[in-house]
């Protein structure tokens, strides 16, 4: 048994258990509003962040809880932010869908589909000019591949020679519509149109994603261009917390559930180690929720602060 496999299981499980509890929070009112969960996709942020340097900046989408946690954002503060409390992240301004933690090189979620691509290009431009050696990465859904912003950024990154990594999480759906109904050609084919390398990977295996991201990072550096990783995965829940999923064909969830990355990660472990890890994460998550609930509400007088520099 290798330590890496235990780590993968533990980190994915932490994301899963936190999100399952957050879903309950949305339902019982501890979280006001909605949440877009990454249940079934945890291997992507966990695997990718294994390969990225801890200071490599990451930009995610509204489905970004896994990315925040994989970048090392402390669970108590993360949960507090989603609960609208005075967390050290955004003090309740971000919430589930728009939180950030620059201290952990987590540059933020984004609730505009494709909106994170242009700024990732810019982050990469700055890191290249300053020779920091860091390579920014952005996660988007497959649906975002149909936004002009994405195409402008890939082309511009390619012609200007800017290295960054675009991770396309192809989870089968864009909201309620199957991805294949919306997209004329796969993401990797489009990458080729901009003369950038694309790596396709099984997104339900953290080690495969880590390996693909490692290669992508090397290629970004050696080609001085954007590199795409298309991670094939399955969304094992609704588009968001309130989604009744009436559009899903019968039996699909059961079938997709068999590909659950967490079940797979656990099957690689010695059963006693797996169980001990499970119990440890259950306790850790319960403790994080208890402590997050103790965080104070944001101060009302903070509401108008930080609109401008002074």
């Amino acid at each position, binding site marked *: 048994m290798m330590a890496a496999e235990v780590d993968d299981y533990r980190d994915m499980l932490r994301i899963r258990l936190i999100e399952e509890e957050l879903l309950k929070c949305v339902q019982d009112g501890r*979280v*006001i*509003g*909605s949440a877009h969960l990454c249940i079934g996709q945890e291997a992507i942020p966990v695997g990718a962040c294994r390969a990225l340097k801890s200071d490599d900046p990451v930009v995610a989408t*509204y489905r970004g809880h896994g990315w925040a946690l994989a970048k090392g954002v402390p669970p108590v503060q993360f949960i507090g932010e989603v609960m*609208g*409390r005075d967390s050290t992240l*955004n*003090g*309740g*301004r*971000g*919430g*589930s*869908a*728009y939180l950030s933690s620059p201290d952990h090189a987590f540059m933020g979620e*984004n*609730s*505009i*589909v*494709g*909106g994170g691509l242009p700024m990732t290009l810019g982050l990469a431009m700055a890191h290249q000019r300053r020779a920091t050696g860091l390579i920014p990465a952005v996660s988007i859904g497959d*649906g*975002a591949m*149909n*936004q*002009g*912003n994405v195409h402008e950024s890939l082309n511009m990154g390619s012609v200007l020679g800017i290295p960054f990594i675009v991770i396309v999480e192809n989870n089968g759906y*864009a*909201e*309620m*519509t199957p991805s294949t*109904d*919306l*997209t004329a050609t796969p993401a990797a084919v489009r990458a080729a149109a901009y003369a950038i390398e694309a790596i396709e990977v099984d997104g339900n295996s953290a080690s495969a994603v880590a390996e693909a991201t490692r290669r992508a990072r090397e290629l970004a550096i050696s080609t001085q261009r954007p590199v795409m990783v298309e991670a094939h995965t399955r969304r094992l829940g609704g588009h968001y917390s309130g989604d009744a999923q009436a*559009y899903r064909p019968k039996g699909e969830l059961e079938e997709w559930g068999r590909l659950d990355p967490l079940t797979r990660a656990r099957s690689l472990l010695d059963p006693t180690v797996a169980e001990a890890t499970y119990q440890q994460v259950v306790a850790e998550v319960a403790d994080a929720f208890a402590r997050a609930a103790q965080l104070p*509400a*944001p101060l*009302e*007088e*903070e*509401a*108008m602060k930080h*609109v401008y520099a002074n």
Partner: protein
Amino acid sequence: MSTPTDAEAITYIRAINLALDDALAADDSVIVFGEDVGIPNGPFGASKGLRAAYGDRVFDTPISESAMIGAALGSSMAGLRPVVEVMYADFLLVAMDQIVNQVANTRYVSRGRLTAPMVIRTQQGSTPGSCAQHSQSLEALFAHIPGLRVAVPSTPQDAYSVLRGAISSDDPVMVFESRRLYPSKGHVRRDADARIGVADVVRQGSAVTVVTWGTSRPLCEEAVDSLALQGYECELIDLRWISPWDTETVLASAARTGRLVVVHEAVRNAGFGAEVVSTVAESLGGQLQACRRVGTLASPIPSSPVLSAQLLPSVDTITRAILDTIGEK
């Protein structure tokens, strides 16, 4: 689909559904499209049952707002009457060029040889927990653009009539619905006045003229109802349309009351309330004794309801503004 009788109260979102249904039935040049609009019946249910009833006249698009709005423009130039749905008003911003540089100029530059009889339906406003990119009220941006018509309906009846009026209009119309009011219920008469730019005098009174639209209307109703109990009879006007807007009704009312309060959920700075107040001030001069604008304070809208409550208009801030114009605390 069963259609409601005139006596039956229906929700705001159902009223939109009914208006789309009636427009599709009445005119086969009407098409309806957007993200998740066809097979999934619409992200909020506005197009429920319409794909089944009208086939490929109601269809899904990729997440490509520029292409969607441009496609509405081109198809309207070629004789169709497209109704395109943009899920949140915040997403209009990725298609700004199409709306402002392309759609709005079509009629003017071609001297009417080309027209854009299209409708962009969207919804806006803050709901508890929604983030800064899903909370904005953006109608003023578009009222600023010559060539566009802009409506902000607040009741099921107005949602129905405004949309029917918009679809029959020969100009491009943007309809800003209210997500928060989608579940609210009311009676809908399908033969109600659907004229563009006509305000609704919700309540008559002589103390103060209160002008509002969209999501703020129920807050204003609550404020003026409770002020009535204290003896202040306010006139409440729901503009329904801000481009064009019913200057005649507002001026006549303000001339009678001499006091004006304009309330909207959009940010107060450079909001459309400023246009209403200055139009009235220019016309009435000294007859306008006092005026106030109520809107969201100049900040992005935070997700936490504790914080957003500090910024958004409330019954309390509206009541205080009204009392201010009367000179009462």
